[in-house]
């Protein structure tokens, strides 16, 4: 491996990135996923954490351009140079440019270049690595078409990046251990149904309960949606449109199965929340009335999915309309004509029509404990 002269590196662990524009060769969601996966390669072996920003100056600005594009290194049309990136530093430092005259692809094909592979290489430069003469290393200067499913960094790449950023210290290469299924104190961040299954989210983990298998499946959120970082606040499914919406802080995403819809994330204000609302605690859709209840603090809103607008007369107090479940909610989902509300390690089954509390259970009663 090699580094740049004087080994420039980021003097912090939290590095921001921004995708300035997109290539017309790929879906925006696929570009975002490729970039996120490329960052994940490097964060998995260093203490670095990468956060995507959507406006203003980021440490690493990512863009597509052809020919002359404002720096001293014009691109050269199809083939030849595919991309370049600058070592850590202010201004153009860290930025990565991709040649729009190439054909960018999500998968490794012979008719184009795999954006994930090239981005992972260029981001190695953005973090301070130079080229490696080890054949097979990611930082080898020549593009090598490879199968990128479960792609692993070459030891030479790991040695290089860890020469700049000491090996993973506080954040182990794998996320903190998943809480036990039957921990009586288990709590959840968000819960939703998805095509007949029920997904329970906590941190970077998701428990997947399927009506077809008795076992609970354990996954990481990034194994389904690589560009979504965990820690959701709320989630709900609109089954009629095969859409699930995830909420985190003041943004939300829409997914259909594994694909994230383009144009997301959007600000939650675009649903009609006032700017005073900075996050949603829980959300649940009633597919009989086509209304979605959003729970924020001790109040809740009702959103009409048909008109895509908040209903009049809201917010209302949770305790006034849902007796017996307390004042705030962590998570909620609906199944078989009931709402299931979660607060702490308790779960409340409520009859949707009568809004009547049926029974109280432990939050992980769905895990065959």
């Amino acid at each position, binding site marked *: 491996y090699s580094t740049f002269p004087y080994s420039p590196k980021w003097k912090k662990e939290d590095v921001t990135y921004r995708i300035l524009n997109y290539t017309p060769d790929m879906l925006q969601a696929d570009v975002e996923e490729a970039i996120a996966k490329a960052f994940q390669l490097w964060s998995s072996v260093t203490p670095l954490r990468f956060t995507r920003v959507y406006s203003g100056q980021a440490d690493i600005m990512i863009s597509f351009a052809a020919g002359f594009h404002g720096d001293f290194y014009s*691109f050269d049309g199809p083939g030849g140079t595919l991309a370049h990136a600058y070592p850590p530093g202010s201004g153009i430092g860290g930025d990565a440019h991709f040649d729009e005259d190439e054909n960018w692809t999500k998968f490794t094909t012979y008719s184009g270049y795999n954006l994930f592979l090239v981005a992972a290489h260029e981001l190695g430069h953005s973090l301070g690595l130079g*080229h490696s003469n080890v054949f097979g290393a990611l930082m080898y200067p020549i593009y090598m078409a490879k199968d990128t499913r479960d792609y692993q960094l070459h030891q030479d790449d790991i040695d290089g990046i860890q020469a700049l950023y000491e090996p993973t210290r506080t954040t182990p290469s794998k996320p903190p251990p998943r809480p036990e299924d039957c921990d009586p104190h288990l709590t959840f961040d968000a819960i939703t149904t998805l095509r007949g299954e029920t997904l329970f989210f906590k941190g970077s983990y998701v428990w997947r309960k399927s009506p077809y298998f008795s076992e609970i499946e354990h996954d990481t959120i990034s194994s389904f949606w690589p560009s979504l970082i965990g820690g959701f606040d709320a989630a709900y499914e609109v089954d009629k449109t095969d859409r699930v919406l995830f909420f985190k802080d003041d943004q939300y995403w829409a997914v259909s199965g594994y694909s994230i819809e383009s144009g997301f994330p959007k600000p939650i204000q675009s649903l009609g929340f006032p700017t005073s609302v900075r996050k949603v605690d829980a959300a649940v859709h009633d597919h009989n009335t086509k209304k979605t209840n959003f729970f924020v603090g001790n109040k809740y809103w009702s959103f009409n999915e048909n008109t895509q607008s908040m209903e009049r007369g809201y917010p209302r107090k949770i305790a006034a309309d849902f007796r017996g479940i307390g004042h705030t909610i962590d998570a909620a989902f609906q199944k078989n004509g009931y709402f299931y509300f979660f607060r702490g390690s308790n779960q409340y089954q409520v009859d949707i029509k009568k809004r009547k509390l049926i029974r109280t259970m432990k939050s992980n009663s769905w895990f065959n404990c």
Partner: protein
Amino acid sequence: FPAVPEKKEEDTQFAKKYLESFYDFKEEKSSLFKAKNLNHMADKIREMQSFFGLEVTGELNRKTLDMMKQPRCGIPDVRS
């Protein structure tokens, strides 16, 4: 058969541009330094052949040219 002269010249120009981009090759513009340029270019070809594990000959042979034509990253392999 030996490459036809104009193809050879075209390859030489391509190689010069490649070595300027990735191996910090600087050609003396004045024709007074023609011999010096050739030696300097041979040195840079050797450097590139060594980086990619090719046979280090200093000559612009087929394998060396093919390697130069591979799609790659725009960052130099060596820098001043």
